[in-house]
């Protein structure tokens, strides 16, 4: 097991190397002139003469072969320098560091209803197999699965913001932002709602939550659909096992059969999905952050990608891929720990 973990961790830098190399080689398609536009103010860029362009391309080394530039970038990364982000107007490392807590906050809060309700619905459907509730939950799941998050997000915004005025888009209200930016407000964890409580500002805490509910609702339906399907089929499989039949034959009350005997074993595949979901929540917030106009990694990446801010793109890819790889490793370890039949190797 330890050997397996060490081997996987050793593979991590290799995979990250491959990932960044792929993205880097794709930017080759752009050619030096387009690459230069990431360095120069667009208003100035259009007025540059050809000689100026050549000089600037020379200055930033954009005519160098790809390998030279890639290893230059890689050297920077190893020193913690990810380059300059044009969209954020600050170093990429700084921009990412500022935005990660907001995405983590969203993912953390979303996990509570998603996992709690998702598993509960899955178990409820399996127990009442082919009854009304089961059909209802399955329809609910398959609609959620077919509903594009940007369509549902727009609907949530329409109902809860336009009509009811409950959950506004954005990250926090204007008045809260003023306080948060003032020096008296101490940023301890950089997670807004928690910092608000540490500073004793319950009003800011509620404000932060109010802005979180819309995105969480949007994310939840899709993931409920996913999670409850897995829970349901895993639960059904376990309920058909001999030991469950034995428990029933012994006269164990149905409630205990389901909650004590069956559910525990049914949870093993669910752990994988829940783990995949945590990764998905961290890396899948692009659309909700754009729709709800929230500060975070997702919106930053979307802006960087659509404006070809490739230093920021490479930085984000590095971040997301690390999350994906480390997350998957943790899932594998958890899986092996829960199910002794699984051997890692």
């Amino acid at each position, binding site marked *: 097991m330890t050997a397996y973990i060490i081997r996987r961790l050793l593979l991590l830098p290799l995979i990250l190397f491959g990932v960044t190399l792929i993205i880097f080689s794709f930017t080759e398609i752009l050619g030096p002139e387009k690459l230069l536009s990431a360095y120069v103010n667009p208003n100035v860029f259009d007025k540059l003469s050809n000689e100026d362009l050549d000089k600037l391309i020379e200055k930033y080394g954009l005519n160098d072969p790809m390998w030279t530039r890639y290893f230059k970038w890689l050297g920077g990364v190893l020193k913690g320098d990810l380059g300059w982000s044009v969209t954020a107007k600050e170093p990429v490392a700084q921009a990412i560091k500022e935005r990660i807590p907001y995405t983590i906050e969203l993912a953390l809060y979303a996990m509570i209803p998603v996992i709690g309700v998702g598993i509960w619905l899955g178990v409820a459907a399996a127990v009442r197999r082919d009854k009304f509730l089961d059909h209802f939950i399955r329809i609910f799941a398959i609609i959620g699965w077919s509903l594009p998050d940007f369509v549902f997000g727009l609907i949530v915004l329409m109902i809860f913001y336009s009509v009811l005025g409950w959950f506004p888009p954005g990250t926090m209200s204007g008045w809260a932002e003023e306080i948060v930016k003032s020096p008296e407000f101490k940023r301890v964890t950089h997670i807004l709602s928690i910092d608000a409580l540490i500073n004793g500002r319950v009003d800011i805490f509620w404000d932060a939550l109010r802005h979180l509910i819309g995105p969480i609702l949007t994310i939840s339906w899709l993931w409920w659909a996913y999670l409850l399907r897995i829970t349901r089929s895993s639960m059904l499989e376990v309920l058909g096992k001999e030991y469950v039949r034995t428990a029933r034959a012994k006269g164990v009350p149905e409630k205990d059969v389901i909650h004590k005997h069956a559910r525990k074993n049914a949870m093993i595949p669910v752990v994988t999905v829940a783990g995949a979901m945590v990764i998905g929540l961290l890396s899948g917030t692009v659309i909700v952050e754009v729709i709800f106009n929230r500060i975070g990694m997702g919106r930053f*990446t979307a802006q960087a*990608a659509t404006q070809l801010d490739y230093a920021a793109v490479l930085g984000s890819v590095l971040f997301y891929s690390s999350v*994906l790889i480390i997350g998957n490793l943790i899932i594998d370890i958890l899986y092996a720990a829960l199910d002794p039949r699984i051997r890692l190797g």
Partner: protein
Amino acid sequence: MNTELKRTLRKLFKNPSAILGFTLLIFFTLVAIFAPLIAPPVNPMFPDENGNPMKLDNPYIMPILSWSSDPVAPSKDHPFGMIAGRDIFYGVVWGTRTAFKIGLIVVSASTLIGLIIGSIAGYFGGWVDEFLMRVTDIFLSIPFLLAAMVLTTILGSGLNKVMIAMVIFGWMATARLIRANILQVKEEQFVLAAKALGIKNFIIIVRHILPNTIFPVLVQATMRLGSLVITAAALSFLGLGAPIGYADWGSMLNYTRNYILGASGQAFTYWYTVFYPGMAMVLFVLAWNLVGDALRDVFDPKLK
């Protein structure tokens, strides 16, 4: 028709959600085929010398029927309303073709690539397998939407670029699946017999191994099709896909975003701008998901 297939089909058509899925799929297919009859590609704003409306050069570019860009509520002439001077009904009908085009092209191209890479890795094993699977790992380590987003921007936006990007980052699941299946089938007697007879590797893979492993791949492809259409629409929504005015549900919804919150105080004024293209997309994806689900139930009875 053999009895096995008959039994499978009977099982398929006893399942109400499968029937719903197939019905929806047939409906969308008919809409796509008969699009020129349902929504004639003509522009009545520009009649020719005989007074007939002008024919469109490219039916996928929605004709501009009015110079006002504000949404116009549904009426008899425009049953789904208008937005940006264009008829929403026209866009929804021709958008069906776009959706089929995106889904089928991306799924078949990426499945084919996955099939080739997976077959080579699984059949030859050794360092070829090791190398191809590490490359697969690398491609799998970039979130799909992010990868597609970056590559589309680099290629220069547009629907074709979206499709290329989705194919390049969409083959890995198939490759893994086919590899795992081939590893199982490889040691079967009939493959060993074919090898002993000295049949070429290529022929063994194509004639003997693939037919025995293809069904899970087809099920997976069907189930992926819906979510691929969603991803393509999401890219259009982010402004990377089809341009405004192209008959594509995603880009129609992207344009709608400006009107979604309605005029001040009247949130649902422009409901039709979201409802019709959104509904078309949800039903389209639903159809594929239901069909994929039903096929999986039939071929893999273990999962329910």
